[in-house]
């Protein structure tokens, strides 16, 4: 399959509804990307899931394509390493494939697959905290070292070098502040702020209540604000 056929990801199911909700409220998070809200994809998902449950691998692969770009984006941002993100991606979808029989349509497939991904990412973040190799240096797919923090800085190169420098510096500070959060705080903040999910959905994904997710988000932002204020 040609590589360019992977270029467009169609957000479906829950996330599309979330995005619509955010737009309706007039407070759209500019970091939430992709605007191809595809109505009716939930219905397609249901039939795809049923086919995949009956052993149709092609149907499962179509399902994967609906969600894998956002899964990879989340894993990449949380792990800070391309090879770790690839491992999380691989493990998550294989796990989903093996356990597809236990999916009972009690939640959306999006929530279900994200529950698997967030669990794997949380394990990864916890292991990283235990290893204390906390230096913000990671290994990329080619085995070369790079700074995890730099990933926040490269995003938009402009014509103004001074402004770019300031952006990079700010990006580095944000990276340090995010690294200092607990894995759970980091996850809730990531899903809310950068993926624009509703806290109710975040709670469902993390097997907890909306109230707990709310408290965790509050703690995370307090810590981030304090950290960013100190560094100014």
């Amino acid at each position, binding site marked *: 399959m040609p590589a*360019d056929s992977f270029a467009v990801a169609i957000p479906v199911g829950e996330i599309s509804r979330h995005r619509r909700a955010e737009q309706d409220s007039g407070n759209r998070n500019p*970091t939430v990307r992709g605007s191809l809200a595809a109505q009716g994809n939930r219905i397609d998902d249901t039939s795809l899931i049923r086919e995949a*449950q009956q052993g149709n691998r092609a149907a499962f692969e179509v399902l*994967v394509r609906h969600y894998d770009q956002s899964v990879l984006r989340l894993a990449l941002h949380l792990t800070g390493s391309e090879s770790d993100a690839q491992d999380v*991606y691989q493990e998550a979808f*294989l796990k989903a494939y093996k356990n597809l029989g236990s999916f009972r349509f009690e939640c959306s497939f999006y929530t279900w697959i994200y529950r698997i991904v967030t669990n794997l990412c949380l394990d990864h973040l916890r292991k990283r905290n235990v290893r204390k190799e906390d230096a913000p240096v990671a290994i990329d797919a080619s085995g070369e070292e790079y700074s995890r923090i730099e990933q926040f800085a490269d995003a938009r190169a402009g014509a103004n070098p001074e402004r770019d420098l300031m*952006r990079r510096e700010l990006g580095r500070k944000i990276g340090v502040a995010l690294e200092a959060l607990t894995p759970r705080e980091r996850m809730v903040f990531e899903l809310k*702020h950068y993926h624009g999910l509703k806290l109710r959905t975040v709670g469902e994904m993390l097997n907890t209540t909306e109230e707990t997710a709310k408290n965790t988000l509050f703690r995370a932002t307090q810590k*981030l604000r304090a950290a960013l204020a100190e560094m100014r």
Partner: protein
Amino acid sequence: MKCDWVRQNILFYVYSELEDDARYEVEQHLARCPECAVELKATRKFHATLSDMPVADPSPNLLAASRMRLQEALETTRPGAFWQRLILEPALWLRQVRLAPALAAAIFIVGFGGGIATTYNYVGRDGGAVTTGSIVPTGGTPSVGGTVDSSAITGIRSVTQEPGSNQVTIKYDTISTQEKQGSLNDQEIQKLLLFAARNNYNSGVRMDSVDVLTQTPSDTRVREALMYALQNDTNPGVRLKALDGLSGFVKQDPQVRDGVLRALLSDSNSGVRMQALRLVEPMKADSNVRAVLTKLAETDQNVSIRSQARAMLAQVPEMD
């Protein structure tokens, strides 16, 4: 008291997480309390600062490589069956029992019977024991282990070549670990090597199999596997080995040349790019090669590669 409550909720107001009535109350309070309005401003600024650093989307290459790797793994994975779900999820099973005794009994019987039948099949087919296969080196006729069914392979454990000969021993897993021994020219051995070069998660094993494959690069399937490794392998050592194996074909095979040029432009490892540069040097008069060299001379991150590309371009006579 009201201010405390509002300040605790300003964050959720900014994130549009408040119910209508709570949002209304917050807005009413903010309109008449300047201190809380300052807090709202600070929270909005914090939100905007973090939003100003967007999360980068994964590169199309990373996405494509991840999809390819998943696709290969799916070929050797079976989806979970209905009965497994009952065995794997006792909580669900118990709930079913409590809520619908008749249905639960039926599921229990089907699950139990299915489980027994599957176990019976599994034991009957493989005996649960380690099977060792070997291939007669000269004739290539499979003996004890039979032919290799690549869909049953779950992973390759090791690839070793006897020094000074073309004999290769490959240990691979199906349900249990197996082993094959045979000549490099043997079809079965080649099938396993090609599988190992593409699928194995252990980069040492990929390195070994690519190394052995480089001895027979004239086979088009082998060349394809080497090209695949050059483009997709995550380990730079494996990519370098694949590049070595392809070195003899850069001149005669345009596909190989294009692959090497792609690596030259997009490989993240400067060692691999350097080696690719050496390989294309004899073809520097080729227009494609020249175009890539011009790009490299301007944009490559590595100073040495930039200067080498410039030097190579300087040696090429201008055609226009």
